[in-house]
């Protein structure tokens, strides 16, 4: 009974996910087609060439860019469903290869940035509860607001100027080295850590005001034990939501961070594809991003019950009633 309802829940979410992916694919396609131009026309109309319209037409026709928009959308979508992502209009290379080549770098960057974000957020949160109120906590509590206020690219440029160019800790020409990845992850992770830290600190403060916490403290528990056993676990639920949302943040932020640190990843792929209106590439990445985002949120939904017994019970009750 319980398992069946869980399966139903999963199925419902999967269908929703599919709808999200299809809608984002269609929306992206239509938006690109509302805008004038395409990579082929732009290349041929470069002022260096002096081509006439008659010379350009057969090339445009070869790429199917002269067909009506619904037909183009249908062709593109029906290929996409069979797993054929098509060829980049800009580079003449298969899109699947371009995405696969860019993916590892972005996964490494995003997971490093998430690690950095969590470490910094939890360190700040711990400090905000356990350091001397005025000089420790006050400063720590203001850090998230500050790092949220500074745009990612400024943090990135600052880190590069200081650590790459002045101190020589990494080379801009080897962006995938461990040191370069660390600083890129720092640039990308700091704003995310701020969001997580703010939520975490608010929740910790809330728990610290509860009666059970005062009782626990009166039992003479150490600060560490208090924090771990009584404050942290109950404050972590919103953090899971934050992490799920942060994935979107990390994907979006990688656009800027990858460009500044010279990394070849999904972010820089999207950036150049968007600039060139290379829609086969854009569509593939948008679909991929939608899948990732939906999957992570689904995962978060599945993790909640593990952290909060109340959610488990509620689902159980609902399942029994069904």
């Amino acid at each position, binding site marked *: 009974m319980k398992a069946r309802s869980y399966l139903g829940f999963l199925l419902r979410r999967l269908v929703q996910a599919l709808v999200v992916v299809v809608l984002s694919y269609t929306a992206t396609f239509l938006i690109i087609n509302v*805008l*004038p*131009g*395409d990579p*082929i*026309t*732009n*290349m*041929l*109309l*470069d*002022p*260096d*060439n*002096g*081509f*006439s319209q008659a*010379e*350009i037409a*057969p*090339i445009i026709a*070869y*790429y199917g860019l002269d067909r009506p928009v619904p037909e183009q959308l249908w062709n593109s979508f029906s290929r996409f469903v069979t797993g054929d992502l098509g*060829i*980049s209009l*800009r*580079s*003449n*290379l*298969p899109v699947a290869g*371009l995405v696969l*080549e860019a993916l590892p770098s972005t996964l490494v960057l995003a997971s490093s940035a998430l690690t950095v974000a969590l470490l910094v957020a939890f360190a700040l949160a711990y400090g905000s509860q356990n350091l001397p109120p005025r000089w420790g906590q006050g400063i720590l509590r203001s850090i998230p607001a500050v790092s949220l206020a500074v745009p990612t*690219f*400024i943090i990135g*440029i*600052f880190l*590069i*100027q*200081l650590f*790459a*160019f*002045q101190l*020589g800790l990494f*080379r*801009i*020409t080897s962006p995938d080295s461990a040191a370069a990845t660390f600083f890129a992850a720092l640039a990308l992770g700091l704003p995310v850590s701020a969001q997580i830290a703010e939520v975490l600190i608010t929740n910790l403060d809330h728990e610290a005001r509860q009666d059970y916490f005062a009782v626990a403290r009166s039992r003479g528990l150490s600060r560490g034990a208090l924090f771990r056993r009584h404050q942290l676990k109950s404050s972590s639920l919103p953090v899971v939501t934050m992490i799920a949302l942060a994935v979107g943040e990390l994907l979006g932020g990688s656009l800027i961070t990858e*460009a*500044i640190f*010279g990394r*070849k990843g999904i972010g*820089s*792929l999207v950036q*150049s594809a968007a600039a*060139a*209106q290379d829609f086969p590439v854009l569509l593939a990445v948008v679909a991929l991003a939608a899948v990732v985002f939906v999957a992570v949120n689904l995962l978060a939904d599945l993790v909640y019950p593990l952290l909060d017994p109340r959610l488990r019970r509620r689902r159980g009750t609902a399942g029994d009633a069904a």
Partner: protein
Amino acid sequence: MNTERRKLAQLLGIGATTLASSLPAHGRAQTARRDGGEVTFLLSSLESGWGLNERVDTYTGIVWGQIADKLVHVDARGHATGWIAERWDENPTQTEFVLHLKRGVTFSDGTPLDAAAVAANIELWAKGDPSRGVGRLGLFPSSTYTAAEAIDAHTLRVRFSAPTLGFIPTLGYHKAVLRAVSSLNLRPNELGNLTKQLGSGPFTVRSWQEGDNVVLVRRPDYNWGPSAIEHTGPASLERITFKVVRDASIRGSALQAGQADVVLNVAPQEFATLRGRGLKVVAPESLGFVSGFVVNTRAPHFSDVKVRQAVQHAINRQEILDTVFTSDWKPVTTFLQSNVPEAADLGALLAHDPAKSRRLLEEAGWRPGPDGIRVKDGQRLRFNLFASPWVSTSRQVDEVIAQQLRQVGISVNLQVVDISTYNARVRGNDNVPLIEISRSFLDAGVVGNILTSGPGGEDLFRYEQSNDELNRYAAEIANAVDREPRAETLRAVQRHVLEQALFIPTSQLLQRIYVQSPKLRGEVYSGAAYPLYYGSWLER
């Protein structure tokens, strides 16, 4: 990158600058050629793929210059010298050319670069292959091309239906790179694959990542460089790495920090700082049109020569140089770059003379309105000016021009748009009077193609074939079989076009500027300012 971000990056970079400027300046005593060494070259893009003809852009063109050879080398004066074509014969009517190829030349896979391979390349430049989505090579004289056929393994004949003086110089164009026959015939989804695109150049591809980097290593058996380069045998440099760094200020800082040796295209405002740090700014002259506007005579008010001349004289070109550019840019004296052999000195026709502009406008019936903008028959003298999306300094230049024209009572509404929007709103739009041009060429015969709507003509001034004088000039240039008489015609064209104010030049066009370490020596530039690192070396 926008100005604010650049300024901030500069500020952040000041620390790095001060630290590094405390290092001792290096002595320049040792200039002897050194074997070995690696060069790192940073550029803003490598995204157009590695396909044929028009897929080669400014950035990939620089890489192609190292991995592929050309038939001839054309220098900054438009002079062609032997490369893969050691020498050539031309018939008196300039319709038939026999190319004699260097012997023993091979592509990097070992296949021979012979007459058949050259003929296959020329055929594809001339015609493209629409069945694989490949357009022809824009600058190639396709309209008169007939055939290219191998006579023997090392000789081929190229025939044209009409005199084609520009054929030989065009072979030095950065897109006219010789590729292995297997590379020419790749399937459409493999054309962009650099692993399969083979050249016969002094460097071969060690590794590459689309849109990000290309690592080249020298080819040990190379021994067929252009005669213009005084070096034989394999290249001296062992390795060249091309790496994309999008942010211009980070490219500049990386160069200052010694993490790169050459950087393409840094903002002119940063030259002084970079020079102060002992770096070299190389701005090779480039054959072609200067930066400026062609006038659409069908646009409202611009059919009147007095309005066109008023604009010509209202522009203060010195002020543009002083505000936007540096002393690396020379003043313009015609609409051709000053290194084009046929360029005339017509600076007087471009003199800044706002009083004359006002007089011309008065004569044409344009009287100042209440807000200073001139009015005639209830219409204000006002137009949209679109900054060229292909020239990074265009917006700044146009801002200065807008102010200058305002002073004589012409109102300019400056529009800054991306390439797609520009194509949609400017191409074929007879309401846009001034169209910015930024075109390089290796042979000034190209000028004949813009004048009218005759065969292969672009008709930039939109007279079609109604202007007898332009018709005559276009025919004379097209039928020329000798350079000297053609140069006479080209000089007359320049005078006529500038007197009629059909072309409004603004500044010298420098599209490829290299900021580099003073240790890099011996590089040679083509007539379109593309570098050849075959003869280069790094000082210790």
